[in-house]
């Protein structure tokens, strides 16, 4: 792989990564959010695989394959299962910020990420660190989704978005994450999603809804 194709592939994967994140903010249907999360997983895998091929590192390619199984297959499947069969739950009915507003906010977050990562890129300017603003903005967008959505499942998806961003940032900013660290983080995320899935099912069976907005008051 020569240098131009490397930079191109890295940029395309980065662009898809960001586009999927913004797309998730623009969706009301939780199912299509999950589908876009899987697409973003593909972009993340491509990002890591391109890095692995460029550095001739078998370890990174193995990590990419593992990430693919987890983030394109297992996590979307688990969230979809937590969604259950209730059709009323498939649509985000209330969000603190409306769709047009959250899209404009995501544009502002991207600009913020660019401003914030400038000194980081200046430390070691390379093709990999040039994609850093994209991954940091995905972190910010994930945080935004986590904060503004009211449905428990969209919050889970927001959390996964945040984690995708953190993982991508880790791979791009360092010269390679040790496989044991990545393994630990991945298991953590998997466990969090399993726990949250159980929690969502319990929420629904107790209250009949997963809208967290209704859980503000304490009752005895």
């Amino acid at each position, binding site marked *: 792989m020569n240098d*131009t194709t490397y930079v*191109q592939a890295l*940029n*395309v994967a*980065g*662009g*898809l990564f*960001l*586009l999927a994140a*913004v797309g998730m903010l*623009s969706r009301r249907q939780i199912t299509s959010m999950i589908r876009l999360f899987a697409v973003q997983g593909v972009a993340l895998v491509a990002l890591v695989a391109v890095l692995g091929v460029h550095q001739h590192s078998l370890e990174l390619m193995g990590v990419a394959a593992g990430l693919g199984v987890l983030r394109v297959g297992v996590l979307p499947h688990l969230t979809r299962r937590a969604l259950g069969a209730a059709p009323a739950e498939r649509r985000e009915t209330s969000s603190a910020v*409306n*769709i*047009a507003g959250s*899209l*404009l906010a*995501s*544009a502002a977050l*991207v*600009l913020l990420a*660019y401003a914030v990562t400038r000194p980081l890129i200046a430390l070691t300017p390379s093709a990999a660190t*040039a*994609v850093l*603003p*994209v991954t940091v903005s995905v972190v910010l967008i994930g945080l935004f989704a986590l904060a503004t959505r009211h449905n428990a499942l969209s919050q889970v998806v927001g959390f996964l978005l945040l984690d995708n961003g953190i993982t991508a940032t880790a791979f791009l900013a360092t010269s390679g994450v040790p496989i044991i660290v990545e393994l630990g983080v991945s298991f953590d995320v998997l466990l969090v999603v399993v726990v949250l899935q159980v929690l969502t099912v319990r929420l629904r069976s107790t209250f009949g809804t997963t809208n967290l907005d209704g859980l503000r008051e304490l009752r005895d």
Partner: protein
Amino acid sequence: MNTVSIVETATQVVLVIAVAPVLTGVMRQIRARLEGRAGAGLLQPWRDVRKLMRRQPTSPVGSGWVFRMAPLVLFATAAVISAAVPLLTTATALTRSADLLVVVGLLALGTVTLALAALDTGTAFGGMGASREMMVLALAEPTILLGVFALSARAGSTNLGTIVTATLHQPLRVLSPASLLAAAAMTVVVIAETGRLPVDNPSTHLELTMIHEAMVLEYSGADLGLIELASSLRLTVLLGLMASLFAPWGIAGATFAALPLAALAFLAKVTVLAAALATGEVFLAKLRLFRVPELLAGSFVLAMLAVATSFLLA
């Protein structure tokens, strides 16, 4: 400006005007077949235009010169754009003034004139259609300008010929994130500008939903024919512009030899885009008018990201 470029430009304008109604026919035919109807044939829009052109136009009582001028202005702006935009050749006779901003301005001029004419009729539908069209235009404009900036940043110029030539020299640039994001944003804007689903339904005559049709409701005869022709011309030119900006392969330079090949490439690209648009429309319902700002805000964000990435990523 030399003979070669004048002949090439004339060929381009004639070809585009001849093809535009056929392209509309192709889209209607694809839609009809996918919906299980037989369809009226590819040449039906041309037959409609010919029939309308022979008839005498009428104008509502009390309407003035704005109403009479609007079809002419709409058609003239579309024709000038089809001469300026590099569809067959990058060396059109208007190359020096074929700025992306000029093209956007001409498009807006046509739309605004039509809206003024709709207001001039003094009917309720005309005013409603005009106000809706202005809303869509006002929301689409920032996206177009940002998309223009994103595309011109990599070429260093807003001249269309320069942008297309730069893309021809570096084909991999098409795959850069900035270019892909700009392509997505521009697609939404083209759909909004030409009044296709999900922003506007081109085949509706239901009072509550129409935008473009409400504006042209009072036109008849030759005026209506001109407006129909101009609408399909705008659609063809905009699809051709998308093809030239994001897949410029086959466009001729300042030579005659490549012109037939360029014409074939243009026809193929435009037909593929139109077929994709028509197929997509089958699966879409019209958005509620109050959801349209969401769609256009999305395309604005895409254009904004395109600008950000073209400056900082590529």
